[in-house]
């Protein structure tokens, strides 16, 4: 395997810097964002590299669990931050976090115990990357679905209420929107599976091949990971849409948009 040195990374960084320069000349207003994001990449990845290195030295369930919990909490916060219409109180953060926890944790643990069977099953070399990949993709699906749901219910509040008036249950009244939200949460993964290998070479597989694994072994792992991601993102999406819809109605089947935060005049 060919090891990268600082010179290689520096050259790549120069490319990003020149992109920043060009965007500045074009007045795109995103130069600082590019630079800050690039800097974050460096710092965050170096940190996780160090953490993983330490973790591999001391294989301990407690440490793995701690990292996993931090990952879930950050993902929950990230989901909450991406919403245009947020739930009031702890619900926004809580729903995202809980659905991430259910989907990603269950799928990751199932994969580790039943499929990968490392020794011990929670070995960080397998546990952390698997969980990270499942979670990163579930996060996209869950936040898309949640955003679509709150947006759709807000937009169609009059139609929903018309159905409630006629004696439909909350679940019936919001059925179309729930389906749309669930679909939009699963779309990215369906696209990724359909395009895999033809349009795009998935990053994980590419990484393994670059690191010297046999392509066929890398492909097998990639298939496994894709399926896990799809299941995790899919079930997480279903959970969050279900719970989120329920939260927007009360026990007397009233539409309760007051449980969403107002977003000011230009939000419509």
């Amino acid at each position, binding site marked *: 395997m060919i090891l990268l040195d600082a010179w290689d990374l520096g050259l790549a960084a120069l490319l990003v810097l020149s992109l920043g320069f060009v965007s500045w000349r074009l007045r795109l207003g995103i130069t600082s964002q590019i630079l800050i994001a690039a800097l974050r990449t460096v710092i965050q990845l170096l940190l996780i590299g160090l953490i993983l290195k330490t973790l591999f030295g001391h294989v301990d369930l407690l440490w793995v669990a701690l990292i996993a919990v931090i990952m879930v909490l950050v993902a929950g916060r990230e989901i909450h931050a991406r919403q245009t219409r947020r739930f009031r109180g702890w619900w926004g953060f809580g729903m995202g976090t809980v659905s991430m926890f259910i989907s990603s944790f269950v799928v990751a643990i199932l994969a580790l115990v039943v499929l990968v069977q490392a020794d011990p099953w929670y070995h960080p070399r397998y546990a952390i990357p698997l969980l990270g990949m499942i979670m990163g993709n579930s996060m996209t699906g869950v936040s898309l679905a949640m955003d679509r749901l709150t947006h759709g219910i807000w937009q*169609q509040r*009059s*139609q*929903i*209420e*018309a*159905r*409630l*008036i*006629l*004696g*439909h*249950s909350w679940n019936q009244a919001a059925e*179309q929107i729930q389906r749309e939200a669930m679909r939009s949460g699963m779309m990215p993964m369906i696209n990724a599976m359909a395009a895999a290998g033809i349009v795009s070479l998935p990053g994980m597989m590419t990484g393994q091949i670059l690191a010297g694994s046999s392509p066929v072994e890398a492909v097998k792992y990639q298939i496994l990971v894709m399926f896990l991601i799809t299941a995790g993102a899919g079930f997480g999406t279903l959970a969050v849409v279900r719970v989120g819809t329920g939260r927007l109605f*009360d*026990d*007397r*089947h*009233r*539409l309760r948009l007051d449980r969403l935060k107002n977003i000011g005049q230009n939000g419509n």
Partner: protein
Amino acid sequence: MLLRAIADLDPNLGEIKLGDHQREELSAPDWRKLAGYLPAEAFWWDDLVSAHFQFDASEQVTSLGLPANILDRQIYRLSTGERQRLALIRLLQNKPALLLLDEPTASLDPASVEKSEALINQYRQEQGASVIWVSHDQQQLARIAHSKMRIEEGMVLMKDQA
């Protein structure tokens, strides 16, 4: 606001009884089928008119002076008056025991107003239903009401039996 509260659409205080049923004994959807609320503006969740009706509505449609094939049309191509009459029919299909009508004939021409009033009256007699009818038209109130209640700035001002 009063009609919305009776239909249990906003959180509210107070007890309501309809026949033998206390409101809280029934599930909210069952209650709303019993206490049928017709808002001033009706909304539609499907493009096709007929998708909003549980039963064949062609008979009631013609009795309100609408063309029978209106059920196969697209909602967005209908006039406000046509939608208002269709909303009334849509509501009556639930067979509510209490009708909560908010200006049900506001955007209709005199001939259609008469037909709508007749349909509501006929329904009331056949089903033994009660009707709470909100209207700003004094002449209409004189025609249809058995008792009147005038509400100004949240206060009941006057109540009389006709």
